[in-house]
């Protein structure tokens, strides 16, 4: 089980897209930094992320949403403490 972390916007880079290509069934995706916009804006990968969110596998770092004044529409908001717990819960982390 991998924890994938993505930090860039789906409007700027293909990191989320490249990540989704390799995301396995038990894996979790955590959006941090600029990537948190993917939980709010309309972009080509939104539907795919919503599916992940419905399975409880999409997390969004709270502090990064707040910093940008963005309200997420999908995904579970989480704190840095939750981030630490997510790393522990998964065998390894992959930073995109």
């Amino acid at each position, binding site marked *: 089980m991998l924890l994938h972390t993505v930090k860039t916007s789906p409007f700027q880079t293909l990191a989320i897209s490249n990540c989704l290509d390799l995301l396995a069934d038990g894996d979790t995706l955590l959006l941090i930094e600029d990537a948190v916009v993917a939980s709010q804006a*309309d972009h080509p990968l939104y539907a795919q992320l919503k599916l992940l969110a419905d399975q409880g596998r999409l997390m969004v770092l709270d502090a990064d949403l707040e*910093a*940008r004044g963005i309200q997420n529409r999908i995904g579970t908001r989480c704190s840095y403490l939750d981030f630490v717990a997510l790393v522990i819960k998964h065998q390894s982390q992959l930073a995109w």
Partner: protein
Amino acid sequence: MTEKKMGIINRCLPHGSAHGRESLDLTLAMSAFNESISLFFIGDGVYQLLAGHSPADILQKHYQPLFKMLELYDIENIYVCSASLRQRRLTTEMLIIEVTPLAREQLQVKLAEQQQLLSF
């Protein structure tokens, strides 16, 4: 030596990189020397203006209030890509300053008018 019509283009989200903050610094400083500055907010750049930034918890500088200085510094040509707003479910009312929304073709015309461009 004459001032050039200069377009400053903002394309990035705030805080993930320093582009937005350093673009604003540059804009405010340049305005003392150049009265022909136009600002463009396209793509993720529109989030620079989305009211309600609160970056204390991520240890970043809260520079958003400085956008209010643009008016004091007589920078009035502030253009926002309307398609970029729509795609992000944003409206001009949600932005912290008054802007002129432009469609793609209008943006192309305005960009072509500039003699120099800086992109952040």
